[in-house]
């Protein structure tokens, strides 16, 4: 689960990470009063969306008066902000964060993620602040320092100092920076984060170490033990189809193409998308109905696919193990009848109770094209959906 910058800063502050003082605003007037309350001649208005690259896209403005704050907020709120991470449609800004300006001396990077090979969280730090860490890794891999740590121990002081000295934090600020690194590590473990990043981390001319921007993603599997974090979810940032899918415990990701896919299992779902593209088509989504798919889940999944107006054809690919083909077939037939399906539908069934499943499809009276293999299914649906959007 992703959260906004202002929410990440609120959490990090609680864990002992110094952040600039700020206020949220949902209207231009609120932004003007936030400027007043902060009482700082120079402040910054920042658009709050779940995507990076806001600065270059005009989502971060330095303001020197309440009027400027009002104008900056008015220019962002209610409008779509398009960054290199949002896709061409952008994300609508519902909240801005107004914070006190800082007299930045130097910019650094600090972030924690899981190292799969070690099976441990690793703190990365770099002298190249402000730049995306992916870019630093590609251009200057030697400038990323790493310290792995045990969740029970946290980041030891010596590890924090090694990082701080290593990236060139001024000697008089090593203590403050080390404390910040340790607090970030504590936040990562205590809040079950999957990513916790401060970029840029800045040293200021008045001797402070501050988190100027912050990004936190939570491990969705651990949210059950952090019920207090549920309020941080912002459904405005999610695709309505993805929200609907999550209600039925379906794993759905909206994509750009025009062939809707319904598959059981993540690996097979990805392989199905690959095969569709191999035949010149373009998948409209990733949809894993899971191993324990019921008739109801299948029907819900089918309706979500249909609700995507880009979908010009549907491919169902099920390898029944626990999921039984006859039950899947019943769900597909029931849903196709209910929505009065008007686009081509290709179904490939294999596995448990496959014969009964194929019978149900055949006897349904619906225009369902059967396929014996994944390759055949992809070829057929791509043939039926000619042209497409791409």
């Amino acid at each position, binding site marked *: 689960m992703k959260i906004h910058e202002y929410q990440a800063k609120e959490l990090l502050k609680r864990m002992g990470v110094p952040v600039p003082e700020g206020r949220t605003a949902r209207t231009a007037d609120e932004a003007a009063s936030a400027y007043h309350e902060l009482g700082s001649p120079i402040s910054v208005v920042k658009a709050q969306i779940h995507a990076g690259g806001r600065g270059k896209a005009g989502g971060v403005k330095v303001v020197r008066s309440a009027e400027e704050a009002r104008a900056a907020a008015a220019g962002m709120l209610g409008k779509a902000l398009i960054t290199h*991470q949002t896709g061409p449609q952008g994300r609508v800004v519902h909240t801005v964060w107004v914070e006190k300006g800082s007299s930045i001396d130097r910019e650094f990077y600090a*972030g924690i*993620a*899981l*190292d*799969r*090979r070690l*099976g*441990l*969280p*690793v703190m*990365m730090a770099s002298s190249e602040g402000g730049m995306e*860490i*992916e870019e630093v*890794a590609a251009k200057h891999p030697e400038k*990323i320092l*790493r310290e792995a740590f*045990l*969740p*029970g121990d946290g980041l030891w002081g010596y590890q924090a100092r090694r990082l701080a000295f290593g990236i060139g934090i001024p000697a008089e600020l090593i203590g403050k920076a080390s404390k910040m690194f340790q607090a970030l590590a504590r936040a990562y*473990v205590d809040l*079950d984060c*999957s*990513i916790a*990043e401060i970029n840029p981390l800045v040293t200021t001319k008045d001797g402070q170490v501050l988190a100027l921007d912050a990004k936190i993603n939570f*491990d969705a*599997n*651990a949210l*059950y*033990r952090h019920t207090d974090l549920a309020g941080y979810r912002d459904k405005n940032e999610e695709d309505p189809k993805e929200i609907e899918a999550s209600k039925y415990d379906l794993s759905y*990701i909206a*994509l750009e193409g025009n062939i809707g896919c319904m*598959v*059981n*299992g*993540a*690996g*097979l779902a*990805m*392989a*199905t*998308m*690959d*095969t*569709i*593209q*191999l035949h010149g088509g373009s*998948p409209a989504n*990733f949809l894993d109905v899971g*191993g324990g798919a019921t008739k109801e889940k299948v029907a819900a999944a089918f309706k979500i696919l249909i609700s995507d107006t880009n979908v010009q054809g549907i491919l169902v690919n099920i*390898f*029944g*193990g*626990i999921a039984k083909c006859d039950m899947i077939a019943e769900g597909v037939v029931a849903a196709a009848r209910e929505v009065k399906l008007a686009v081509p539908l290709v179904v490939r069934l*294999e*596995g*448990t109770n496959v014969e009964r499943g194929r019978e149900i499809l055949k006897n349904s009276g619906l225009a369902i094209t059967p396929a014996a*293999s*994944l*390759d055949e299914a992809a070829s057929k649906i791509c043939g039926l959906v000619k042209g497409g959007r791409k």
Partner: protein
Amino acid sequence: MSIFVQGDTPVICQGITGANGTFHTDQACLYGTRMVGGVTPGKGGTSWTGEKSGAKLPVFDTVDAAVRATGAKASVIYVPAAFAADAICEAAAAGIELIVAITEGIPILDMVRVKQSLAGKPSRLIGPNCPGVITPGGKTHGVDFPGCKIGIMPGYIHKPGRVGVVSRSGTLTYEAVWQLTSLGLGQSTCVGIGGDPVNGTQFVDVLSAFQADPNTDAIVMIGEIGGSAEEEAAALIQSGGCTKPVVGFIAGTTAPPGKRMGHAGAIIAGGKGTAAEKVAALQAAGVAMAPNPSAIGSTMEALLTRKGMIAKLRG
């Protein structure tokens, strides 16, 4: 005869009285797996009966008690995600040699702690979030070969034989196994290592085990985007750690970046974890890559024909 499990491996189930534990233990009994008991804290002293198999098994409060009473060597875990990490550690503490964790959705930091706890212990963990491990049983060369199915895979798609299968995926493994079986190519053992970022057994562990197994002649390896486990497998093969013929497939060639994997995580692992990088690494190591998921079986058939091994493996 196989790796990790044989027809006579005694197996217990942790979470046997839950819906999944009950259903799949019954299925395992029907397949012929030597199930010897189950564990559910608070239900020790009762007994469990399989609905279809009619098998009757003793239920214990602790894994330790189950091991002492039954001599179990393997345990399969179906307990809910919130308690699964604890269940894995309990199995290891009781001396279980092979722990197969089917449970999906275990918090990542729980698995980090489990991995630390298991370090230095002799137990092998397979999973979590995996279909399990199966050494197929059935008639082969006129002899009834005993099988061992630990997990949720449908038993009937398998056939005893000499191809080893290892995969990060569930249903995509069934797809590959079904293609092999349809072509008359049986399997020695099929191992699902699971799709979670922190897991117990890696491709390299399974490849090394297949290399050492005299009854495995060829290997199918199915990877996915993300992480670097496939690149590590390629390095093992390149360095001569696995010399048997390998057919590979990587799912996710067309998956959009950034949707499912954290970029920062991929960077640490030294690479972006893309399908293209993985395919290139495996090809450079001499692995025969299937061009699409429908061609995994036929790619193996062609490779074995080229090497003059097809008659033996089709047996």
